[in-house]
């Protein structure tokens, strides 16, 4: 227990001093990793902890981004409202999509979500006058104090830390245990007097909200939004992050996000076959790491501790 908090504090300290010592590009990359880590963790709340087949999570990421971007570029409202509106748009849509999809379960839920999400994507992709169509919106202004790489890095670090803390609390709360019960055994949970549909819907709203927060952060870091953010292949990429890191663990998806974002950044710049590499990673995970990397690390550490004891 003490060990865990030491690790967390160390990582946090490194993250705080990082922009002071590394070049701008790495600061930018770390910001992207942080917000993508939040995105993957928010998906894990639904798919890993509650067993909901949230197959089109990117849609909430995109909606969070577009919500923020559109308020900034189309209205004169203050910035902080734009930052709040993004996630709220994501929540509203996850409510609507959730209410429709909840009539189905498992794979059918996921398939319906992909179709509804693709519908939203198609509208965004085509509505040139409002969303900028396939170009998206670029050069979105943000307040001065978060305009440079350092500023938006600290802003991202701050928001992501708080969000992750909240999600961590939720997972370990009675609500968190209840949704894990729903995942393991919905029929049993119902017979305990628990209304599983209401719980599932709340999980969808939480996942959608923090997906939207990640999208909002993307606007701050990249000053741009584009339809690819909410294309279904990106949902698959987030899902691979979750699987790669470890679906039933809290930190696993974050680790998955670190690996995938780093690989995409470097490999994507030398080859255009990134999706193929992604596919190979997925095959590797399915065959050799069904529990994810986090479980591997955990077993390794535990094994070591065990050896030290004996």
């Amino acid at each position: 227990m003490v060990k865990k908090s030491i690790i967390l504090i160390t990582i946090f300290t490194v993250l705080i001093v990082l922009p002071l010592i590394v070049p701008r590009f790495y600061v930018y990359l770390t910001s992207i990793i942080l917000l993508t880590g939040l995105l993957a963790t928010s998906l894990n709340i639904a798919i890993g902890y509650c067993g909901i087949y949230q197959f089109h999570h990117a849609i909430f990421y995109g909606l969070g981004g577009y919500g923020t971007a559109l308020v900034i570029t189309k209205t004169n409202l203050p910035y902080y409202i734009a930052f709040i509106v993004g996630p709220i748009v994501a929540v509203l849509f996850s409510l609507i999509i959730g209410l429709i999809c909840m009539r189905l379960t498992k794979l059918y839920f996921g398939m319906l979500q992909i179709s509804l999400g693709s519908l939203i994507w198609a509208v965004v992709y085509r509505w040139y006058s409002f969303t900028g169509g396939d170009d998206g919106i670029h050069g979105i202004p943000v307040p001065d104090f978060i305009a440079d790489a350092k500023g938006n890095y600290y802003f991202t670090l701050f928001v992501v830390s708080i969000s992750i803390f909240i999600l961590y609390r939720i997972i370990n709360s009675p609500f968190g245990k209840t949704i894990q019960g729903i995942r393991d055994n919905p029929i049993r949970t119902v017979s305990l007097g628990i209304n599983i549909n209401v719980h599932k819907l709340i999980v969808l709203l939480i996942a959608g909200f923090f997906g939207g927060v990640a999208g909002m952060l993307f606007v701050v870091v990249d000053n741009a939004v584009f339809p690819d953010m909410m294309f279904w292949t990106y949902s698959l990429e987030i899902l691979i992050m979750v699987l790669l890191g470890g679906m039933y663990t809290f930190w696993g998806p974050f680790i998955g996000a670190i690996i995938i974002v780093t690989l995409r950044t470097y490999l994507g710049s030398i080859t255009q076959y990134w999706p193929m590499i992604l596919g190979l990673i997925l095959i590797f995970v399915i065959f050799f790491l069904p529990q994810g990397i986090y479980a591997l690390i955990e077993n390794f550490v535990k094994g070591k501790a065990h050896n030290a004891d004996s």
Partner: protein
Amino acid sequence: MLTVKDLYRDFKGFMAVNGANLEVTKGEIVAVIGPNGAGKTTLFNLITGHLKPTAGIVQFKGEDITGLAPYKICRKGISRSFQIVNIFSKLTVFENVQLALFSKYSKTFRMFSKASKYFIDETNSILEKLGLLEKKDLNSELLSHGDQKVLEIAIALASSPDLLILDEPTAGMAPRETERCIELIKKLSKEYGLTILFCEHDMKIVFNIADRIMVMVRGTTIIQGRPEEVRCNELVQKAYLGDIC
């Protein structure tokens, strides 16, 4: 306490439950017996709301609960276990029971407090009652089959039901586990005054612990009565028991 009147359930032309009648009074242990496919599990699913009846009435404490959602029926005081082991396999034994308590005290929407702080004493006392206390930190999927069945009863008990429904509590158990389970059911009834409705294949167990027995054949209730009445009923013998009397 529980009254089932002329209950029917139609599965696309097959009448799984075809005129079932059942009466359970407070404090009793009532057994439902019948050959395979007689509709016992379907009957329990109809009572607990997992299936909706085609026709008929289910009354609990004088109130009509026919076709209510399962979680609502649980809140009225009926708790059940399942024929196939139905536990939360990735949670620990302790958390399995604790989860039922979250529901009982309506804490399932608490999002920002630590789950591990809730109901420690109550959970422990339930586990102790059922002899699972030493295993409370084990992952529940690691328990033996017999222990998992007992854990199911523990989960069902945690919601402090007035009526406990057990669907083949001893199915798949080793003889010694079965004995322990029977003792447990007797104890729950005697010491805690629980009303218990169960179904079972093992006739010895049924005649050993049931106050009254209801016999079902092809979805229809043939008779409900005391063990000796049932034992000597002609229809029952013909359909089910062979020559015991």
